[in-house]
């Protein structure tokens, strides 16, 4: 059973109160089966995880008290993530190590906390997300990788796509939202590392890259057999505007 090694948590009520609530950042993975759950599902799940892990959350005062949790950049359904982030507001003494241990005891292997720290940054500074994509498709992987690099290069022909937003559908060129794309052939598969716009100002869902490859290169045919044609997307981290140039991860 997944929850067999459950810790006996210290009740949050037994912890001394802090003078003022503080924010801690929790870095966690969302992999495997959890890629099929939406951001909304994730928010609801975390509300419950925090309760059963007895994390001393600060509650808003007023008519309908609720805990305050803020997520980093939402992960699209169908993508996995290794460095997802959530900021929590706590109001009692608890160490980062305790938070990590208590949370991991209440999570499955597909979602585990890797790090807990007091952040110096805000999620609004996130500018780029880094994705690793793995593709299996008919054709020569080396030729396909080269073709991908060509069409997604910064100086390539504009790729106009319909982006859905709350204010309606919009035609946009996705190339300016790509920092870099590098595709290589590896064991008969294509591996891509892509740095794409991320954050609440501008965000490029990696699925648009898949669509561009499908439309322009005819790879990943939609009617292909499931064992012949597939792809996976994994988000491995974030950069802020300065970090992307020097390769310093957002923390």
């Amino acid at each position, binding site marked *: *059973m*997944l*929850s067999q090694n*459950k810790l006996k948590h210290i009740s949050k*009520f037994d912890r001394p109160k802090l003078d003022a609530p503080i924010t801690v950042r929790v870095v966690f993975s969302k992999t*495997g*089966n*959890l*890629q*099929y*759950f*939406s951001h*909304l*599902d*994730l928010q*609801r*799940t975390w*509300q*419950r*995880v*925090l*309760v*059963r*892990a007895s994390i001393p959350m600060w*509650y808003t005062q007023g008519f309908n*008290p609720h805990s305050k949790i803020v997520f980093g950049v939402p992960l699209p*359904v*169908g993508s996995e993530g290794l460095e997802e982030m959530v900021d929590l507001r706590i109001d009692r003494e608890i160490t980062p190590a305790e938070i990590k241990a208590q949370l991991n005891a*209440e*999570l*499955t292997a*597909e979602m585990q906390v890797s790090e807990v720290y007091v952040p110096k940054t805000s999620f609004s500074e996130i500018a780029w997300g880094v994705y690793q994509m793995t593709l*299996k498709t008919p054709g020569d992987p080396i030729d396909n990788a080269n073709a991908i690099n060509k069409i997604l290069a910064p100086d390539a022909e504009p790729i106009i796509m319909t982006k859905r937003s709350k204010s309606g559908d919009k035609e946009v060129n996705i190339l300016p939202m790509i920092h870099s794309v590098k595709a290589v052939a590896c064991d008969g598969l294509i591996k891509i590392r892509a740095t794409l716009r991320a954050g609440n100002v501008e965000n490029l869902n990696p699925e648009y890259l898949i669509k561009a490859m499908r439309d322009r290169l005819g790879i990943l045919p939609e009617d292909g*057999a*499931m*064992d012949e*044609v*597939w*792809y*996976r997307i994994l988000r491995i981290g974030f950069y802020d505007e300065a970090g992307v140039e020097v390769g310093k991860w957002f923390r």
Partner: protein
Amino acid sequence: MNQNEKRMLLTSVSRPGRYAGGEYGQVIKDKTAVKARFAFAFPDSYEIGMSNLGVRILYHCLNLHEDIWCERTYAPWVDMQEKMREQNVPLTCPESGDPVADFDFLGFTLQYEMCYTTVLNMLELSHIPLRSADRGEDCPLVIGGGPCSYNPEPVADFFDLFNIGEGEEMLPEIVRLYIKMKDEGTYTRAAFLHEAARSIQGVYVPSLYTVTYNEDGTVEAYTPVYDDIPRTVTKRIVKDLDKTPFPDKVVMPYIETVQDRITVEVGRGCIRGCRFCQAGMVYRPVREKSPQVVDCQCRAIFESSGYEEMSLSSLSISDYTKVNELTDSLLSWSNPNMVSLSLPSLRADSFTRELMDKVASIRNSTITFAPEAGSQRLRDVINKNLYEEDLMRAVNVAFDVGKNQVKLYFMQGHPTETDEDLAEIPELAHRVVAAYYQNPNRRKGQHAQVTISVSPFIPKPFTPFQWEPQDTLEEMERKQAFVGSCVHDRRVKYNYHNAKTCRLEAVLARGDRRLAPALEEACRRGFKFEAWSEFFNYEGWMQIFADLGIDPAFYANRRYGLCEVLPWDVIDCGVTKKFLQRENAKAHEGNTTPNCRENCSGCGANKMGGERACCPKTN
């Protein structure tokens, strides 16, 4: 299916979280180390199935056995079914990802008649033959249980075995018998079914009973094919609810489900004896859990789930003898932990200010009561034992604390009903509106809103009204329009159920084995998810009945003879036929029967025993 294939399949359908699995709290075992694998199927969508308390309980009970691995499966939504057929992917269980057809058992819970076609649909998706007679030695044993199994006859041909009654002990016993016979080398499908029917109380193996019919189409007799199996199958109950296994943790859905909260039963059965209500009869004898046990179970689930809502489950929560003691102890820890408490199924006559102040539903502005009939005469016929004064007192308690919306549930088509009775439904609603404006404590500046919801009567097996005909479709629809025409106040909102669905439900509820070809044909024609109005096809059903020469009126609109052999007479649900006949006669005389606590009405269910029951003991 490997992870890459799974990804391509799931990302091509809506709400892929329904099929992903990987929930916190799911039970994973080593499949090479277990001796029996059980697929627990809920014949509706994941969102509905995950909300079911019975599934939670039985999943737990089976998995308590180290050598049994119980997994779950739900009906894939139509878009997923299309993809599965296209890619030739069979129905699987998310825990292991293995096809249902590879399991030892496939158990369906039958919560409502309108799920029958989805059961067949799921068998088809599993590549398992629909009829038990066509299944080979390697096919899973298909088991049915749940409320509808009290008349399993319309689906009898599709099941190898039914659980009649409460499954906590019976279901593991069935699987243990299977393991034992496999270990001993005595297992064959036929030998196992015979032995289960012979030795485990509550097991009904339909293929071991032959049915003969009279010339007029009614049942002549049920005959067991072996001498050593019971002539009638007596339902099973768990004797002591305090000692029965109850899950201390639940499988936590990631996606939003219908009821996603802590749910704990306070007892089973209902003391009231409303004459239309199947649950009120088949769950007898009335048994309670101790408040300390309910409190511990709620607390344990809270700690393992982190749920922010808690609900007590019962057919009539305010009839629980220790309701105040229990709610006090729950609130002592739920309040500081920000967990809200809700109490469904409140009766107007036991609804108090004290109870109201305790429950979270005070935050919503709606409160619901079920008078079930508009006139006192008809409420006496159905044995509701509720007076208008009770209802008026209850709504005034609600108005006193600032509520302005009241929902009232009714039924139409009760035996002996006249248009005068029906006209009383809107009249009662009008009087509730008037009571609002006469209440000096009402919230100023708010208008009253009274919703009346009226659903057609469906005669159900093992109720005093089991013999009664349902109104014809035309009459049901005429009555619906008539009630609407009697509403003269825009503060009264009128809702009603689809009469066509209720008619088919009546056919299936009182049906016999001769309906199997119709269900089979419905599955062949692609019927499924019929509890969803967008998928229910009444005209399609009428066509099937016409094509197969089945008269739906024989089942829905016929007055069954008080002495005729009923299709469900092969089952003994605890209450006697004599009692039901007595209650039926009293209904027609307009006489009520006191509730179980006031006076034992001799229904017969006390013979089953049970701790903390309100029945007199038998010798």
